């Protein structure tokens, strides 16, 4: 049976002396705490199904640091790796894949130029183009941009609007429509983050994850809001997500990935153990 994926997310930032670190890591007993390669190895040993690396600076320096991290990780870790953050050109994708990544995520670039999804999936294959969608519920249901009105996580009618530039800029695009379009353009997967849930640790934004997961025929990765393993269970069972992404609950050693998967299995969710 195809298992549900548990994916730790590493926010990579350039550090001093050309090195790089993972933001917000509080590992105990970890050599070189914060070195993304050490962390990637640790997560691999714990049973992570994939690794996601995000370049949160999206700068030239950040990209160089990221390529180095991917190359060093690919020497030792043999599970799929996805890289995102600031990808703007076909050459960006090529250099990341060449370094040893398997997939890339596009977000702002794709919103501004949807043909970028088609162009890059035609060249590299759908399987490596993940469209990252950041969105936020908008209670103004009379907005002419609103296409799909659903009940948001607070139980109120709303539409979900795509936001870009790290959530700062609303776009007037309906998130469900955008997910369908991303699929049509050749995206192989959707990574969905609701800004209403991100960082809260109150749980994923289940209504929009469920709505998008049911609207497309490609896998959906739930992202943003995981505060405990029960939240992962909810994303899989209540919102039909194919994968659950989390950062802080793993970085802060609240759970190992193995513990999270043990819990999911005990609740009947198929996972790789």
């Amino acid at each position, binding site marked *: *049976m*195809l*298992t549900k*994926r548990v994916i730790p997310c590493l926010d990579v930032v350039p550090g001093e002396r050309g090195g790089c670190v993972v933001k917000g890591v509080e590992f105990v007993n970890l050599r070189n705490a914060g070195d993304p390669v050490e962390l990637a190895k640790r997560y691999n040993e714990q049973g992570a199904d994939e690794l996601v690396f995000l370049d949160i600076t999206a700068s030239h320096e950040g990209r160089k640091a990221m390529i180095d991290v991917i190359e060093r990780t690919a*020497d030792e870790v043999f599970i799929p790796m996805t890289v995102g953050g600031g990808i703007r050109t076909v050459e960006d994708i090529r250099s990341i894949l060449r370094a040893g990544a398997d997939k890339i995520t596009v977000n702002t670039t794709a919103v501004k130029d949807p043909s970028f999804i088609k162009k890059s999936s035609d060249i590299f*294959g759908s*399987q490596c183009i993940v469209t990252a969608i950041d969105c936020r519920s908008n209670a103004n249901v009379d907005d002419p941009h609103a296409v799909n009105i659903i009940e948001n996580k607070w139980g109120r009618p709303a539409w979900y609007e795509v936001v870009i530039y790290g959530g700062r800029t609303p776009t007037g695009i309906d998130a469900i429509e955008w997910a369908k379009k991303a699929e049509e353009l050749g995206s*192989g*997967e959707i990574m969905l983050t609701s800004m209403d849930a991100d960082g809260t640790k109150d749980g994923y934004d289940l209504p929009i994850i469920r709505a998008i997961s049911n609207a497309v025929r*490609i896998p959906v990765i739930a992202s943003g809001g995981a505060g405990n393993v029960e939240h992962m269970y909810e994303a899989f069972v209540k919102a039909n997500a194919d994968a659950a992404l989390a950062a802080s609950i793993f970085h802060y050693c609240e759970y190992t990935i193995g513990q999270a998967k043990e819990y999911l299995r005990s609740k009947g969710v198929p996972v790789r153990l």
Partner: protein
Amino acid sequence: MIAIIDYGVGNLRSVEKGLAYVGARSKVTNDPSEIDSADAIVLPGVGAFESGMGQIAPLKGVILERAREGVPLLGICLGMQMLYEESEEGGQHKGLGLVKGRIARFPESLKVPHMGWNSLSIKKRHRLLNGIKDGSYVYFVHSYRAPVGESTVAATDYGGDFTAIVAEDNVVGTQFHPEKSGETGLRMLKNFAEMA
């Protein structure tokens, strides 16, 4: 030396690193003379069947010749599909014809690509599976699949069984990515290297 055939697509670095990790020497190449002298050949692959076959066209002769000589040949993902007679991806296209059968798309009712970790149901023993337990998980990403047939060594269930590992003597193929399947995949790469 294991020749990893480079035809311009895919993450070849991972295959190379995976083989290096298990102590096998390999080289990414599109040079027919290197393929001709290799102890084993890996045909990797991502992307579409027709373009893949188009890309390997100049090397088709040497690949077939070496395979018929008995040199171990491992096709991975699209590389496995290209071992078959034909595929329905993007019309009807002929493959290398080293394995009987036809590649077809998953039913419309399923989410495609079939992406993630799924388990192997071992149908018969093969050297590639030395030390691998029935039910082991491996990583898949694909939208087309081979039916289960006489040459199926292991099957995987996604809306019904399909061929996850195929073997006809020295010619083997994995629909999943052994170079992305953790310890299980590395063990298979080691087993393959030992076939050489």
